[in-house]
């Protein structure tokens, strides 16, 4: 029997079987996404529409915990691995891993025109003009207040230009009257701390542009430690952990253990969903210090990464995401503040937001104008973590009585200098 022909047929069939998927194989783009609310779900929905229009590209959205973005992504990127796109918050710190999309963009001017004020946050240096991604949303740090507790305590809420001292006094009265565990709490974060610090006069940068611990910063640390010692601040949030581990205070707010928290605009969706009708809550403008009434801007950015083998498709997808209609959908559904100048000017409708959430979005959006210049500069600074992290660790040590405030300040300065020195090597 001649077996040559069947063998040839088999080989042909195998070749075809192997070839067909190869011919129809789409380019995969992996997106590493974390979410405070439903950001990754909305991104997936937009990605499906993108795929329908671009059948040769498949977008896989991997939803990961925020901790993975902070701890694992940098290690992956340093090892030359990683996704094609990531949603990051350490905007400057990871900039050396970003891919400049400019050569692949159809309309780079659109991104320049609408995200121009925040594009420098993603650039590795001031001289660089590349486009590495865009902000998925703007955030702003700021306080939330439990209005029901204020009403029950019959204490009037301080006004828009009230100082931190006035708020401390008012929440202290509320706490006493309503028997909450403490008057207020701040997220355990150096980023959150920086707002009040600037309000108390911290310049953050010296004349040479290096990080500095000045008198304003010292005042803020001293006051903050003092508020813990006198029981105004809930000790568990900062004192409950070691090192610079992040801990938010929203859980304490939702459980009405405090009358006020310092957190940020990204919590609106969570508050709306979790608090429901349990009590009335409001976002209030950042309280004032002697120098300013500021929070810290920030947000997350979609960035194109050098590890991608398909930079052109990555740029295509990010351009699609940045398109005004898609961006508006993302912002509207996730209830965030837009970083898109055109959209911000037109205004965003938040159909799913409750009146409280809508009011809070208004407060935060309105607060953008009152942000101090140092707050913007700090947010865009590549090594801002070098100041944020020791602030948390050392201030906590002072709060629990391990070291004095002066020692804490000296240690913050030392740790900061060491970290910057190592990062610059």
């Amino acid at each position, binding site marked *: 029997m001649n077996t040559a022909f069947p063998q040839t047929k088999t080989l042909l069939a195998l070749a075809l079987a192997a070839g067909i998927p190869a011919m129809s194989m789409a380019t995969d783009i992996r997106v590493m996404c974390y979410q405070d609310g439903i950001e990754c779900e909305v991104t997936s929905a937009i990605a499906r529409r993108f795929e329908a229009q671009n059948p040769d590209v498949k977008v896989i959205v991997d939803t990961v915990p925020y901790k993975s973005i*902070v701890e694992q992504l*940098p290690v992956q990127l340093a090892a030359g691995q990683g996704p094609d796109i990531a949603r990051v918050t350490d905007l400057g710190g990871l900039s050396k891993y970003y891919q400049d999309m400019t050569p692949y963009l159809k309309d780079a001017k659109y991104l320049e025109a609408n995200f121009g004020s925040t594009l420098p946050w993603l650039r590795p240096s001031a001289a660089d003009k590349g486009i590495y991604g865009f902000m998925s949303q703007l955030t702003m740090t700021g306080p939330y207040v439990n209005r029901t507790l204020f009403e029950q305590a019959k204490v009037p809420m301080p006004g828009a230009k009230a100082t931190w001292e006035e708020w401390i006094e008012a929440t202290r009265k509320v706490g006493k009257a309503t028997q909450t565990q403490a008057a207020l709490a701040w997220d355990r974060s150096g980023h959150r701390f920086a707002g009040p610090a600037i309000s108390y006069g911290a310049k953050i940068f010296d004349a040479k542009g290096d990080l500095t611990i000045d008198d304003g910063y010292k005042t803020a640390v001293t006051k903050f430690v003092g508020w813990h010692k006198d029981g105004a601040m809930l000790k568990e949030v900062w*004192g*409950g952990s*070691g090192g610079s581990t992040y801990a938010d205070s929203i859980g304490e707010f939702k459980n009405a253990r405090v009358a006020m928290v310092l957190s940020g605009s990204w919590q609106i969706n969570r508050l709306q969903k979790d608090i429901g009708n349990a009590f009335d809550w409001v976002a209030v403008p950042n309280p004032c210090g002697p120098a300013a009434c500021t929070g810290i801007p920030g947000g997350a950015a979609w960035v194109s990464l050098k590890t991608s083998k398909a930079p052109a498709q990555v740029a295509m997808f990010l351009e699609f995401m940045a398109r005004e209609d898609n961006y508006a959908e993302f912002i509207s559904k996730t209830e965030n503040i837009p970083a898109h100048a055109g959209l911000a000017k037109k205004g965003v409708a938040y159909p799913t937001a409750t009146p409280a959430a809508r009011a809070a979005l208004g407060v935060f959006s309105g607060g953008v104008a009152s942000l101090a210049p140092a707050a913007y500069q700090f947010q865009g600074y590549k090594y801002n973590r070098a100041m944020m*992290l020791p602030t948390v*660790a050392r201030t906590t040590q002072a709060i*629990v009585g391990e070291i004095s405030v002066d020692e804490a300040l000296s240690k913050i300065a030392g740790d900061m200098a060491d970290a910057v020195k*190592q990062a610059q090597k």
Partner: protein
Amino acid sequence: MPQGIPPGVPCSCLHSCKYDDLSASLPAKPQLQTLIPPMRLLAIFFNLFEPLFKFAQRVLGHSRIGWMFVGPNLLVIAVFTFLPIVINVAYALTGGVNLMPAQRPYAGMENFSILLECRDYLDLQTCRKDVFWRALFNTVRFSAIQVVLMVLFSLVTALVLNRKIIGRGFWRGVFFYPVLLSPVVVALIWKWLLQTQGVFNAVLVSAGTGPVEWLTDAQWAFFWTIFVSIWAHMGFYTLILLAGLQAIPKDMYEAAELDAASPWRVLYRITLPLLVPNLIVVLVLALIRAVQIFDEVFVLTGGGPGSATTFIVQFIYQTGFAEQIHLYGLAAAASLLLAAGLVILTLLQLRLTRAEQSGQRAR
């Protein structure tokens, strides 16, 4: 002919013949046919390597052929155990925040000197990396207290569980059960009990007293890290000691009973001396585990309040991975210092074991 030897194979060949001789004497075809199909496939598969083994034996010789078999294992150990140690040393001797060793500038002993630099070694505050020293001090303090209590409680529990008590099997299960739980689960359970609005404080408040800062007060937090780690691991050590107790010959106790020895005398003269080998194992294992403490404490207290429960492994983790500016060199240097500590403990174990063995020989 012994059972299992294929027909036609001379008995002497099974022990002393060279591989060549053995394979030559085995009738391959009839043997394969007697095997069930999967085994036959397996035999055919292994027969494929026969030429390779023949070649290797010819090249290496009969005495060195063993290296070929242990080679793959040695390679795995070299790649996954010794290479990481070498890489760790490389990180410890370099600086910067880059991950790839080739991109890291050589720093010599700088990382070690940063860790060990103090103006006054009696005042931690004067140390450049005071948290390292605090973590070290906490680890020593934790190990000293926890190991002593762990051995003591394990011993007492084993002695009780070795007696004929009602529901002995149940009680053994009760004490061993926490060992089966993941350290993270253990820590979360205790966190829910101990947090400010946890179960313990709910009981205290309902009893009319105020809540206690179980986890935000430094002393209480340290106490609970010791308590929880003993609670979680005591069952394991109890089991080792229980096995030791049951290995003590019964006639020793019968002889003591005939001599009307008091229970204390029996404990000091018979039980404890014969339990020494197990006690040494427990002591060394508990000590090594205590020095490496991390997981349950990290979940329970996060190393806080402040640095009250920050131990050396957490310091390494935070320095190298948790902080957003990753100081791999510093973390690697700290881990080498920890390794040095563990080597000392291991040498101590060897010395104790040898002393015990020579003591036994002398007896």
